[in-house]
């Protein structure tokens, strides 16, 4: 089944499903800093005109959490709980993303691999995918859904 990105311009979708995707990033030709997502003006030295580069697909877990409630008490039966992490790429950027795995699967400093997860099927029958990170040992084709949390939350404030 064809795969399409939830939003163009952020990651690659390899033709071979066994191949890891890459993130679409930028590199400043003046100071060498890398960024994700792509940007025109360098955030560090303000040079105008960053170069397109591919980032990843590996990184190290800087920090993580396991979320036991859906988004703002969202009524989406398919996801009750999920891991979230910040992953440091070797090039420098720190990427915030959903993690594949259960509540006891993560440890700060562990190596993770970029991966694509199907969110839904669109009207043309394409799989709509988003990037996530997974432990390198996880079998790509047999990933378990995140396990269900104990209860759903009905409150849950927190404007960041």
């Amino acid at each position, binding site marked *: 089944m064809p795969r399409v990105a939830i939003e163009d311009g952020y990651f690659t979708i390899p033709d071979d499903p066994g191949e890891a995707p890459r993130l679409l990033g930028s590199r400043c030709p003046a100071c060498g800093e890398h960024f994700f997502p792509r940007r025109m003006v360098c955030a560090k030295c303000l040079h105008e005109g960053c170069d397109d580069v591919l980032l990843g697909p590996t990184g190290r877990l800087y920090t993580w959490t396991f979320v036991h409630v859906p988004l703002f008490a969202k009524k989406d039966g398919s996801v009750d709980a999920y891991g979230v992490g910040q992953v440091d790429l070797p090039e420098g950027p720190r990427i915030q993303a959903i993690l594949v795995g259960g509540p006891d699967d993560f440890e700060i400093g562990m190596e993770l691999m970029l991966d694509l997860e199907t969110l839904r099927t669109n009207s043309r029958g394409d799989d709509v995918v988003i990037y996530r990170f997974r432990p390198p040992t996880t079998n790509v084709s047999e990933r378990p859904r995140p396990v269900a949390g104990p209860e759903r939350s009905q409150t849950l404030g927190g*404007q960041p």
Partner: protein
Amino acid sequence: MRIDGAAIAGIGMVRFGSHRDRSTSELARDAGLAALHDAGITLADVDEAFVGYIQPAAMIGIKAMKELGLTGLPVTHIENASATGLVAFREAAWAVASGRAEVAMAIAFDKMTDMARGSANSRGTGRDQLDSTILPAAYFALWAQRRMHDHGTKPEHFAAIAAKNWNHGALNPFSHRQPDHTVTVEEVLASRMVSSPLTAMMACPADDGAACVIVASTEWVKRHQPDRRLVRPIASALQSEAYSPGHTFLGPVVGPATMTATTARLAYEDAGLGPDDMHLALCHDAFANEELEYYELLGFCGEGEGEKLLEAGDTALGGRIPFNTDGGLIARGHPGGPTGLAMVHEIVVQLRGEAGARQVEGARRGLAHLVGGGSVCTVNLFESE
């Protein structure tokens, strides 16, 4: 920036909570009238107004202002995420300090319960869709997990801060959460896990509410309120993120911790004061672990020493530097825009010596801190005569 020649003329707020049957305009009207009454004036005496809210509907600020009267005064809308209220206050204080206005109003309102309900169906499009796939609680939990890794912090520390703020809320008539018993660390830890290690009782509620602060020239306040203890804003600093390696661009993140440290330093420098000169502090405790970080970033102890400060009871009422004496975002509540003006409300009540059971003895100076959207930070210092 240093603020000279401005003082607080009036304060008012609507107790935060669920106000499903009331419009934002009504909430704003009641907070505005309370502040005008506290100042002993009507809208005719106000030269300029700054209206803050997060809820994204164009011009609802000016519509709310009309509930207080139509006098032709200049009205400016302000939105800086969770920092909105304090930034509206900063503009009102600066309007007076600059001499452009003799009396200025900062007013803010929001219905976060509407936003919480609405977001279930509207996750945005394009980049917003990527930004909104993760629950806000997760961002703060990521920070908490890293702290546990770096400093050996325990969930009990976060729970102790939450319990303290719930119990402070019990002493504040304007607090949303007013527990009828002493909240314990065990009770906080046993509440529902939201995003490990943060439990539901470590998080602020979703609130509706409004608050208003009226600022006037020091001469005006002394002339109109000769028998009241004068409370003055003395410095206000506002910063956005400065780039540092490892910056996370995509997703509404907590923002670099250094942003609070930088903003606080600027405020202290402008006032010619330091953390030791403060008698109470209010900070952005949407989640309990934030308060622990801000003990250090606001300069009240060294890095990695926040747990000791907490364990000594220094940040509870009766301690050396009580934090979130009104219950903080966790208990008093966090509607969004009005939150910062509720902080000013509490500092003014404390510095006037009118805080009753939660009065900080001899309080003469206070600090109010907020971050917004992980992208802005403001620190404001106040002093009484």
